């Protein structure tokens, strides 16, 4: 069974996101002064072929911990959906 994992990797809240800050300043220059902060992260789509959603979820957690995110500076979340 194929599953699609939609993974979001974001910088931990304690870490300064210079990219987000630059985007926020640009938005302020455009007149969007109500935008108080911007945090930029990564979005990934991964296809996983496993027997069950549980197993696919385990694989997804593992790959996020090992490679797709760095726990020192990033957090990750994901959603799984079956693909026909």
């Amino acid at each position, binding site marked *: 069974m194929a599953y699609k994992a939609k993974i979001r990797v974001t*910088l931990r809240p304690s870490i300064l996101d*210079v990219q987000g800050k630059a985007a926020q300043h640009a938005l302020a220059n455009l007149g969007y002064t109500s935008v108080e902060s911007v945090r930029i992260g990564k979005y990934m789509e991964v296809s996983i072929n496993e027997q069950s959603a549980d197993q696919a979820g385990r694989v997804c957690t593992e790959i996020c911990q090992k*490679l797709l995110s*760095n726990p*020192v500076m990033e957090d990750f979340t994901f959603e799984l959906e079956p693909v026909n």
Partner: protein
Amino acid sequence: MADVTVGIVVFPGSNCDHDTEYAVASFPGVRPVMLWHNDHDLKGSDAVILPGGFSYGDYLRCGSIARFSPIMREVMDFASKGRPVLGICNGFQVLVESGLLEGALIRNTGKKFICSQSTIKVVNNGTIFTDGYREGEVLRIPVAHGEGNYIASPETIESLEEHGQVVFRYTDAEGRASEEANFNGSLGNIAGIVNRAGNVLGLMPHPERASEQLLGSEDGRRLFESLFRHVAGV
């Protein structure tokens, strides 16, 4: 120094490998050997250097993919036996991604890629990489990086400081670790750290680019010299 073999790892995207080879080869009796990322052996290396560059295009995170290349399994095994490993710039990023060193290197606070001369202070000259320097000595060594902002949890920083693992700090020419001297925003002005066992060093500045007077500084030379002397047992 007699018969020292130094492995220099070449990842796709490494670009300081040949500069490092040149600097290493300038020491009599020291033989550089290039190690391709897909190699499975260190070809008799007595020490291993992970050079600067953009391994795997810096995809995902700097150093994150290089860390899983076949040669890194050998390097990690080598390091776990207490053998010396030196990571320069991207090599430092690979070392933190691999867990051989603690913390992480993120984008410079000023967002820019910074290519310039830097001044760093030798905070700990009691390592195999720095015993050729005086403690507190200020060195002129170039930097060239976009992600050199060293971060770690407060507990990790405290432990690094407590165990003398902070080896180099960005300072001004007088050796003051000021905010202005900390051009990339690193916690505690940290420019280089060593692991607890003392055999793995990572630093953002490029000692190979400061290894002869023609390059404007030879302050980086003694880092290699200290290491090779230690490896040769003299």
